[in-house]
């Protein structure tokens, strides 16, 4: 077998292992869905009425893209904890003494994280429809939404694997993803950036989650903005590459 196909086969085996872990521990998935739904109810039903998101715009339509991004970032804690947990156990050393592709042990985590994000995002979209979500997206735009969610999840997953490897303990690995959970609040997820104070607004406009949320919002509204979409894709690809390089180099360092 060639190196690439061996690596692919190893990754598939590791992916099955991580999937089994996730299925044995359904609390992770449940948690990853429940928290965003609670946030959704809180923002849409409790707070949303007081926000001015532009004339004629339903708050559920405004908030759903931001909630999707929050859903992705909220699910990452489980990944960094799992990655770190793996490192502190002997099983990784066993794999390392075997002729197993180095990346396979990490790609398993990345793929499972991406799948879990997709499942959680689907649940959030389903919930949004129940609450009167009325997107104007065409089939092609829905495909764009799916593609962007996968790309953002994938990028965030690599970054999280890097965080998990860099942390000293599973607990601190979980804590390390907290900034990623907080960042959507400091974006245009729940209120437009124009309504914010100057300093905060500048941060909001330049942080990566804003173009990602705006790109999703445009696609879902059937009114995609090419500038935001390009920025969103660029940020994601950048994060994926940085996360990948960081994760692989720290993986090699940790014996």
């Amino acid at each position, binding site marked *: 077998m060639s190196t690439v196909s061996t690596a692919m*086969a*190893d990754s598939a*085996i590791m992916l099955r*292992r991580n999937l*089994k*872990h996730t299925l*044995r*521990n359904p609390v992770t998935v449940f948690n990853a869905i429940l928290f965003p739904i609670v946030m959704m109810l809180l923002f849409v039903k409790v707070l949303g009425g007081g926000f001015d998101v532009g004339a004629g715009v339903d708050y559920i339509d405004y908030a759903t893209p931001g909630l999707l991004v929050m859903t992705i970032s909220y699910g990452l804690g489980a990944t960094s904890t799992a990655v770190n947990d793996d490192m502190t*156990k*002997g*099983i990784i*050393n*066993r*794999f*390392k*003494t*075997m*002729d*197993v592709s180095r990346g396979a042990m990490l790609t398993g985590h990345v793929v499972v994280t991406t799948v879990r994000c997709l499942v959680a995002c689907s649940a959030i979209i389903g919930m949004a429809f129940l609450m009167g979500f009325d997107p104007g997206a065409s089939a092609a735009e829905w495909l764009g939404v799916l593609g962007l969610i996968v790309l953002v999840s994938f990028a965030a997953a690599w970054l999280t694997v890097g965080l998990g490897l860099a942390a000293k303990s599973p607990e601190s690995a979980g804590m390390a993803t907290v900034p990623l959970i907080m960042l959507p609040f400091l974006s245009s997820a729940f209120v437009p950036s124009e309504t914010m104070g100057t300093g905060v607004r500048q941060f909001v406009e330049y942080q990566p989650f804003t173009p990602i949320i705006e790109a999703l919002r445009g696609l879902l509204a059937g009114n995609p903005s090419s500038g935001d979409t390009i920025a969103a894709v660029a940020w994601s690809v950048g994060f994926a590459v940085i996360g990948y390089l960081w994760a692989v180099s720290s993986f090699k360092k940790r*014996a």
Partner: protein
Amino acid sequence: MRTSAIAVSGLRKTFGDKVVLDGIGFEVPAGSVYSLLGPNGAGKTTTVNILTTLMTADAGVVQVAGHDVASGTKGVRAAIGVTGQFAAVDDLLSGRENLLLMAELKRVRNKEKLISGLLERFDLVESAQKLVSTYSGGMRRKLDLAMTLVGRPEIIFLDEPTTGLDPRSRRTMWQIVRELVADGTTIFLTTQYLEEADELADRIAVLSNGKIAAEGTADELKRLIPGGHVLLRFTDPAAYRHAASALREEATKDDEAQSLQIPSDGTQRELRSILDWLDSVDIEADELTVHTPDLDDVFLALTERTDTGLTTGTNYLNKAAISQ
């Protein structure tokens, strides 16, 4: 045909300014059991980590299964199996799934047959479907070794495989090691149990302070240190003084413990002559123990450090005692 399964020379490893391995070298013939013996912190695990490609050496040549660990890492990994000090099993999978994972990674054909065979051999059939997190320490260790055997590696590294196991599980482990050797597998074993090295190893190296203090068969090592002795203990101070003055030529005395040591090779004939002679000078000890040199003595003599207070005094634990 290669005869050395493992060949190491000039191996050095330093962590910060602490020299862990100070230029060690040894050879392990294929199909034999080689034991690295040493106290905690002697560098045993570091040696295993380097030999199994988990760590890189600072200097030296290490060949495993004919491949250099630095340049032929892939070849080394394909030829070895490792069971470390801490059971490397996946808690969230069942015993069977752990074995299946290994079989898949090793691309074994006929997985089911292999897995059923291993479960049976290691007496894990009943708990095969249970999650490993529910296993006892001994079961985890057995599963760990079973996982190591998947794919029939030609060289198996066992890093303190029986540390923390009860005596029965330890004997099971030993039996399995013997079966592996009978199949032609080379075993590299580290242990702090002298009994284990004595039972299993063809050759033993004693590692102390990053250097190999001695190397050879168990018998060769035992010959390295002075012979045994007969130890006489007294409870009555008068009897002790009487014996000490009568035996002042032959025995080494220990006033505090009220005991005397008479050199002896431990044979029946010599023991009888000592007893006859003690009778003739009217000495009656309260306790008599025969001490033959064993690996404990070799180990203690070779790994003697500044903190000897910690290691002496255990010598007599395993000895057959004859009380009068």
